[in-house]
């Protein structure tokens, strides 16, 4: 094996039913480097990683790891861990009903002399690990009590603690805010100095340029190339990923228009849900796109959930289209013309074991009621229409949705709501973990919906995205709506409002 190389993969190929997920892919990771693995949704990034970690069983090619003679084939993540490969995935794969400490040590619990689990020592060690990373949590609390961001940090802490040679981070930053991202980057740099090779998968281009040394690009399951970071500026990277020049995002811009004369679609007065969101007022006009800005956990999602009835509003009143309505659960909101794409795609979005077709028609069918079943022909027509319209990459409409890549799953849920033809659509982080091309498609779609007179409530961690599409922004802080910005939307202005204070 070459000097300084910790891991090589050569000629990896792997097929899923109907799809060649990886086709003769090479990958090389050196000691003490942060190596970005880039590509669009479905390019094969996750598949390649799963081959390295033993979740997927590849058909051809070989993997070699420094210090081990001959080709390596992992059969489980545990196998991979023993060989020094640890992974943190895009979605948190820990046990929500176990404590933070238990999650950190699950499968490798420290034992006492009697070979029973040494609880004292592992709580103590857990505390130290979390302290070192600067995460303040009570390690004896169940993981489910913490936000997605903290859960993600725990997953990373767990991987880091396993003395790995190769650390794989698959979209670790998609649910972290800027400060948390910076903490993670610091940690990554520390590990890099210790000689750990890090594979970093992300959709945030700026993050790649902030920490990475080298980039490998995949496209449609094929190897495009490996480049030192300095030789591949942003535009070239995007071009390599998409196989064409970047569809300029700056083109998307809503025309300036005064919406205050338009009829009211949503008028919320004093809505609240105990423990998640304090009473708020919110008016949204027809054809308007309103963004919600705020840090993660500031109550962005909770505000939307409260309007939609996902968390039932305990106080206040809500008018939809000028009429007061009572919303006890999501179906009530849907019958008033609402739809909501939730932020946690895995837990609240997809029905993993149902087909793409069934996932797309689900909300429409729920709205029609149990006894007015859509015929098979109607279902297929609707599925085909939306697969075509928003370009969902799937081998067929009867493929199980769990076999699709994350971005395409997101599109399926989007299709589910478009199929119900909503007047008011809530999109909570619709572009998280999605590649540049798809992002711009979704943003265009939002603008298009608004031009058809539909109202959209848009939540995103990326402010630029909201600046591009929204005509007004609501600012959230600590579970409270603290203000609105309706003119001169600028990144700086919004940031200041989110941060609060005088500066």
């Amino acid at each position, binding site marked *: 094996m070459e000097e300084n190389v910790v891991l090589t993969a050569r000629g990896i190929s792997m097929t899923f039913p109907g799809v060649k997920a990886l086709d003769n892919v090479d990958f090389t990771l050196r000691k003490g480097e942060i190596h970005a693995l880039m590509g669009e949704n479905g390019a094969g990034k996750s598949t390649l990683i799963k081959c390295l970690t033993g979740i997927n069983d590849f058909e051809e090619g070989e993997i070699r790891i420094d210090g081990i003679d001959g080709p390596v084939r992992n059969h489980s993540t545990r196998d991979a861990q023993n060989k020094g490969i640890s992974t943190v995935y895009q979605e948190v794969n820990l046990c929500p009903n176990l404590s933070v400490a238990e999650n950190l040590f699950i499968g490798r619990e420290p034992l006492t002399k009697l070979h029973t689990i040494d609880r004292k020592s592992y709580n103590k060690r857990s505390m130290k690990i979390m302290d070192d990373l600067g995460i303040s949590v009570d390690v004896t609390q169940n993981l489910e009590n913490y936000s997605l961001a903290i859960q993600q940090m725990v997953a990373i802490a767990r991987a880091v603690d396993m003395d790995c040679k190769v650390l794989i981070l698959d979209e670790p930053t998609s649910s972290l805010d800027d400060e948390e991202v910076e903490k993670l980057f610091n940690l990554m740099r520390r590990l890099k100095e210790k000689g750990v090779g890090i594979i970093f998968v992300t959709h945030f281009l700026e993050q790649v340029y902030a920490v990475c040394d080298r980039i490998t690009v995949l496209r449609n399951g094929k190897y495009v190339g490996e480049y030192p970071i300095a030789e591949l500026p942003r535009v070239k990277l995007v071009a390599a990923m998409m196989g064409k020049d970047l569809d300029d995002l700056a083109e998307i811009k809503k025309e300036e228009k005064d919406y205050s004369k338009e009829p009211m679609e949503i008028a919320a007065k004093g809505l609240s849900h105990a423990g998640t969101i304090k009473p708020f007022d919110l008016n949204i006009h027809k054809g308007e796109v309103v963004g919600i800005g705020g840090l993660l956990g500031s109550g962005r999602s909770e505000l939307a959930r409260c309007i939609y009835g*996902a968390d039932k509003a305990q106080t206040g009143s809500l008018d939809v289209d000028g009429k007061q309505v009572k919303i006890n*659960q*999501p*179906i009530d909101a*849907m019958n008033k013309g609402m739809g*909501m794409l*939730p932020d946690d795609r895995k*837990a*609240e*979005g*997809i*029905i*993993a*074991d*149902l087909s793409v077709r*069934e996932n797309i028609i*689900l*909300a429409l*069918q*729920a*709205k*029609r*009621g*149990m*006894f*007015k*079943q*859509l015929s098979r022909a109607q279902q297929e027509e609707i599925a085909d229409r939306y697969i075509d319209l928003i370009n969902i990459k799937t081998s067929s409409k009867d493929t199980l949705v769990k076999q699709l890549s994350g971005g395409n799953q997101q599109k399926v849920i989007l299709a*589910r709501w478009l199929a119900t033809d909503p007047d008011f659509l809530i999109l909570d982080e619709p572009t998280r973990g999605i590649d540049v091309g798809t992002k711009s498609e979704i943003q265009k779609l939002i603008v298009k919906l608004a031009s058809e007179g539909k109202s959209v409530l848009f939540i995103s961690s990326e402010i630029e995205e909201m600046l591009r599409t929204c005509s007004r922004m609501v600012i959230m802080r600590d579970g409270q709506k603290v203000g609105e910005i309706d003119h001169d939307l600028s990144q700086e202005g919004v940031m200041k409002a989110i941060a609060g204070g005088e500066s």
Partner: protein
Amino acid sequence: MKAWNKIKSWPLLLPIIALILVMTVNIIHDAATGVNPMSFFAISLRETTTNGTILYGRIIDIINRGSEVAILAIGMTLVVSASAGTDISVGSVMSLCASFMCMNLAGYGVSSTTTLAKPLVVGLLAAVLMGVVCGAFNGTLVAHLSIQPMVATLILYSAARAIGLLLCNDLIVYVRNPSFAFIGAFLGPIPTPIFITAFCIIIVSIVLKKTALGMYIQSVGINAKASRIAGLNSKLLIFLAYTLCGAFAAIAGIVASSRITSADSNNIGLYLEMDAILSVALGGNSLGGGKFNLAGSIIGAYTIQAITTTLYALGVSSIQAPVYKAIIVIIIVVIEAPPFKAYIRKFAASRAAAKGVKA
């Protein structure tokens, strides 16, 4: 080759293979003992003093005796799919419904009667109503109070039989009336329970085909939170699944009671909940909820009955039978287990690859 692949991915393939396997054992045994190997399938007409001319044969016997488990399996399939749990109270609920029915038909405190105290229909409706109430009770505990299905249904599992005994004043109530006995006897030459089972299966199949209930239940079973956001009333659907399961337990209870023209609280439906759960598993359904295949469960139910009948035909005593049953079930369940399937697929693939190299 394409047709072969289609057959391989057919969900009913394994349940049917299991059933065929059991039949094969019969044929081999018959051949080995010098009986006509096809006697397992032989159906003949026989004269009886009580029921006139009836169909007679092992197949008929299996389909007849398997009725209760098949009916229970329908409800169990829905419960497993919607709630990723099992209703272990169905056997006891069968018994309770039978007791309640016989109490109505005979009158409270009467231990034996030949004339009905109330019209038969009233008794049947009372039984179904009791089943619905029991199912609704289970459904409320599971759906609205979020109690684990096993624990929630454990309550009626242990209590229902006792309640039945109370209703019957601690007696075994005999209702020796021909109109009641008819349910467990014969319609023309064919056993009536076969018609009842067929009726239940047809009704449920039509409902699943013509309404979106099937997709709703599966969706809730796979991801209740996401289903709620998409506009489904997850709690109501889980509640509904348990209520239906209770209703089907009542129907099974009516059949079982009518067969012996009595409400034998301690024996009706004994251990049948386990057979019903097993039917669902044998049918290739995951007990983890989500996707279900009703036809698989039904075939599973008859497979279990075929095993039982086969063992008796082989001369295994009813005390030893469970041991053999367990062995057969282990084999069938292993064949259907996904890791085993994956192993076979891999094995076949490597064989095919080896062949390719040679060619």
